[in-house]
């Protein structure tokens, strides 16, 4: 393991990206396109606020009764011959996939886009077993070709321009570097078709786990998710336990919300509900289906009554697109599977507070994430909550503790706040906060405080 802390990696990478004007331009352009279409999607709702509230309340109920919902799901889906595996962490989830692969003598896997499989680093695990795992979502395929993790939870290659992609394909697949996006898509499609035919196993995530019918639902735009779940003989679903919704009827608002906040669509092109393997009288579908329910730190979040709200997330990516920090540092600077505001909220709780608390501080708390969240999660308040729990649990440095003790002393004493001349304060504060004055003109304290000047004018009240 590397000894460099996630926080110093974040500082180096975010510093580099924040100054990268080419990156800024590409991201502003791509998010600008997103911003232009979202209002169109919103038009389908006659009362958007109510729909968002309903979605939030539904997720509230699902998470508050998570144990019952998951057991109901398990009961219903296993009645149709699906095996449900409960995985406490990434290792258990990977090991379960590994065992299935061995049993099926699997040499290659087709995968649809799934953040949970990124979270457990499934591709690396499969590679170590000499199993080829191919990403079939176009954006994810591009990222895999480039050896990069997804940059964004919805649009994995958002940071690449069409020219970047053409150059990448030329380098890796020997295509003509002048191909258009349409031609590039056809190249990917051709390559991927071969992989579908050869793969013994298809792996997908789930956007929703449906308790009352015992099904999983997959939302996508390319049909690769449907193909990955239906073509290979074995279908493995890997999903976080928080994805549960109580009823299939809830999709009537979750699907349009996810589409609108994710991509500005009314509905995505493909929405698939899978409730089990192929039945004897059916012509399509896998012979076997396995669902792996992953905890991997989610129950830590449930244990914190306030942070629990972060599990309502439907991974639409709206908070990433709205976040000025994300837009300036990009998805890779975070060094996490989930980036942007939601990533900064959940990562310290899913993983290790000591290692990841810096993400809760890497925000101006502007509140735009909270404003755009499809399910109205109070994201910026949860960042603040993370800061509070980090301090309470002793993760702050001695110098921070000391600084705030001093601040408290000064703020409790008007006399102390009036001590020292303006020029002395200028010297002390500007030398203490060099990172303020490097890119901004220095602070200029007044010779006397307002308080002193008021007293001189009006006397002590």
């Amino acid at each position, binding site marked *: 393991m590397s000894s460099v802390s996630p926080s110093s990696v974040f500082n180096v990478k975010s510093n580099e990206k924040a100054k990268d004007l080419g990156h800024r331009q590409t991201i502003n352009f791509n998010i600008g396109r997103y911003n232009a279409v979202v209002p169109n999607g919103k038009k389908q709702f006659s009362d958007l606020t109510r729909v968002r509230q309903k979605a939030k309340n539904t997720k509230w109920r699902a998470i508050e009764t998570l144990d019952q919902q998951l057991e109901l799901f398990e009961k219903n889906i296993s009645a149709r011959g699906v095996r449900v595996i409960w995985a406490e962490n990434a290792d258990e989830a990977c090991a379960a996939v590994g065992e299935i692969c061995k049993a099926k003598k699997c040499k290659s896997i087709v995968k649809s886009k799934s953040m949970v499989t990124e979270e457990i680093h499934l591709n690396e695990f499969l590679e170590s077993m000499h199993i080829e795992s191919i990403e079939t979502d176009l954006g994810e395929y591009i990222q895999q070709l480039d050896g990069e993790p997804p940059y964004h939870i919805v649009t994995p290659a958002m940071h690449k321009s069409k020219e970047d992609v053409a150059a990448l394909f030329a380098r890796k697949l020997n295509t003509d570097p002048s191909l258009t996006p349409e031609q590039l898509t056809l190249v990917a499609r051709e390559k991927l078709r071969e992989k579908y035919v050869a793969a013994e196993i298809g792996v997908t995530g789930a956007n929703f786990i449906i308790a009352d019918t015992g099904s999983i639902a997959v939302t996508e735009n390319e049909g690769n998710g449907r193909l990955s779940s239906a073509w290979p003989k074995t279908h493995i679903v890997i999903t976080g336990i928080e994805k549960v919704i109580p009823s299939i009827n809830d999709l009537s608002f979750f699907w349009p919300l996810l589409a609108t906040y994710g991509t500005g669509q009314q509905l995505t092109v493909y929405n698939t509900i899978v409730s089990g393997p192929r039945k004897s009288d059916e012509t399509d579908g896998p012979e076997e289906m396995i669902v792996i329910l992953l905890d991997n730190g989610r129950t830590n979040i449930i244990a914190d009554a306030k942070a629990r709200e972060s599990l309502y997330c439907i991974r639409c990516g709206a908070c990433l697109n709205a976040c000025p920090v994300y837009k300036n540092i990009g998805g890779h600077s975070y060094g996490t599977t989930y980036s942007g505001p939601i990533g900064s909220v959940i990562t310290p709780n899913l993983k290790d507070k000591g290692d990841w608390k810096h993400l809760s501080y890497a925000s101006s708390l502007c509140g735009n994430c909270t404003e755009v969240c499809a399910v109205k999660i109070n994201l910026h308040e949860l960042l603040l909550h993370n800061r509070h729990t980090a301090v309470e649990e002793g993760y702050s440095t001695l110098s921070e503790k000391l600084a705030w003790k001093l601040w408290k002393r000064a703020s409790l004493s008007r006399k102390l706040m009036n001590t020292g001349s303006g020029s002395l304060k200028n010297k002390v504060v500007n030398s203490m906060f060099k990172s303020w004055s490097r890119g901004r003109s220095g602070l200029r304290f007044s010779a006397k405080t307002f308080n002193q000047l008021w*007293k001189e004018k009006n006397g002590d009240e």
Partner: protein
Amino acid sequence: MKVSLFIPCFMDQLYPDIAFNTVKVLQKAGCTVGYNTNQTCCGQPAYNAGFKAESRAVCEKFLSDFNDSEIIVTPSASCAGFIRNYYNEIFSSSALSWNIQRLTKKVYELSDFLVNILKVENLGASFEGLATYHDSCAGLREYGIKSEPRKLLQHVKRLQLTEMSDVETCCGFGGSFAVKFESISLAMGDQKAGNISATGARYVISTDVSCLMHIQGVIENKNIQVKSLHLADVLASGY
């Protein structure tokens, strides 16, 4: 109307002129302005840094300094928003809870107080120039003002207003964020400065000195010929 003035700690230390302009504006609007000279800070800096206990001690001091005030007015949406939105949580299920609930209902940001309580939009101010208004995140999303400062500015004689692009995007200040994550804060400030500069305005006006302090720092460093002004500075001009 008798109002108690709360001057944010930043303003007290760095910008006493703005505080005096606030007093001038309130007096012009017909208020008797009281200022408790014991006051210091609302407690927000430590709260945002995660140091809840340190923050709470200062919030308690604020409560004792302002417990008897009938109306508290402050030239900061950030402080007012913090008191309104977080004091209840900080003191929930404490013996002070009831006092806090009363306190939070009496705190107003300056423009909100003028427009919605006093129903005054025209203060008779006059200020020559083209200006653009910067929505502070605290004003826009935490406290909930957008039209109020604009209404007041529209009545300032000889002042021309223009809107910048991405006006609802954060300027990048964010308290300790500005020093802890200097380069991110500066990148955000850089884009804000660019949007301000693109309007051709000579002035950028806001309700919060915290944003203005950062914006002014960035624009000076980039040699952009724009001056930042607090809303109170403009409303106190020309009379």
